[in-house]
Structure formats: structure tokens, C-alpha cells
């Protein structure tokens, strides 16, 4: 399966890109994807506890099953206004 992953704020600085495509096996949850990035980018771990995950433009629970074509975004604490 192929999914789109988007990065913002301090997370974007760590990953070094605003978005990417990811090949994943079926059955992965949003949390699994987050953990994969934490493994690949150790500094990502400092965001793991405070970061929310959005799937297809809405906040999603970490247990959400990811489907082919989903858009996943990591949402560090927002600071608009």
C-alpha cells in the first residue's frame, strides 16, 4: 500500500521535507507509522508524546487502521493565532 505522509513545524525540520510517500504493508495503524518515523529519525521521539495524527484531514486515534491512499499528517502542538 502507498500512503502520503505530511510533516509540519519542528517535525518538518527533523524529517527535512514537508511530505513524502510511504510504502507500507496492510494492517498498520497510525501509531505504527509514527513509530516508524521515531525509529528512522531519533529526534522525532521528542515529539511522539505531544503529536497528534490526522488521517484524511481529520484528527484520528492512534489505533486507526491505515488504508491504501490515505493522507497521514503529524500534528505537533499547534500555535496559530
Amino acid at each position, binding site marked *: 500500500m502507498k500512503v502520503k505522509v505530511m510533516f*509540519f513545524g519542528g517535525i518538518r*525540520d527533523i524529517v527535512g521535507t514537508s511530505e513524502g510517500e510511504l510504502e507500507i504493508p496492510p494492517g498498520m495503524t497510525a501509531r505504527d507509522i509514527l513509530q516508524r518515523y521515531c525509529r528512522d529519525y531519533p529526534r522525532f521521539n521528542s*515529539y511522539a508524546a505531544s503529536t497528534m495524527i490526522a488521517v484524511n*484531514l481529520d484528527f484520528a486515534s492512534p489505533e486507526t487502521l491505515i488504508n491504501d491512499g490515505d493522507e497521514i499528517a503529524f*500534528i*505537533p502542538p*499547534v*500555535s*496559530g*493565532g
Partner: protein
Amino acid sequence: MFEITEDNIQIDQLLHHVGKSANGAIVTFVGIIREMSRGHKVLYLEYQAYQEMAILKMRQIGEEIREKWAGVDVAIVHRVGHLEVGDCSVVIAVASSERKVPFEACEYAINRLKEIVPIWKKEVWEDGEAWIGDRS
């Protein structure tokens, strides 16, 4: 009217948008970049948005408000990109036929915006920089 823009926000456009003929009172919230932040002198800010979701979340705030206060009209425009001291980062306008309602609803809107709308700012100071929200 729920928009993300890289340009100066035109407050008159928001007023025009919510100023229907039944609405006698409009309250706006205008966010301005301050010179000092957390003890640092600000050089500039970089605002980033998850644009598509941010617009959905601003629209959701509008719907929440119209459930709580019937008949009000809401507009929200947030600026992104490079902003300097004195620039306007966000304008919220809430119009109502009553005087008290738009104060409550507009305050609700800015509080919710700061909670759920995926927008981030990096402050760049004379002596460093930081994404606001991190570890705070």
C-alpha cells in the same frame, strides 16, 4: 469565509462578509505580531499551515458557533508565511443581531482556533528561534 492567505488580511472583507442586514453588531479579534515574546526580541515569524485541514477546522469552528449561538455569522482568515512585528496574523469576525453574543462567540472562536486548527509559528529572535507550542 474561512481562508488561509499569504497576503495582508483585509479586515474590511471580513466585515463585509458577515455584515448582513440583520446583524447590528460585529466583534472582531485581530492578532498582531508583538515585538517581544517570552523575553526575546522578535525579528520575524514563520507561519505554517496544513492548509486543507486548517480550513476544514476553521469551518468546524464556525459550525460549533452557530450551534451555540443561533443566527450568527462567522469569518476567519489566517495568514501564513513570513510575518514581521506589527503584522496581522489572524482576523476573526462574528456578527449577530445582539450585542453580547458576538463577544462571547468571537472569544470562543480564537480559543478554539488555538486548540484545533493545524497552524504553527516559528519565532525568530535576535538570540535564537523556536517553534511555539513545542514542549509548552
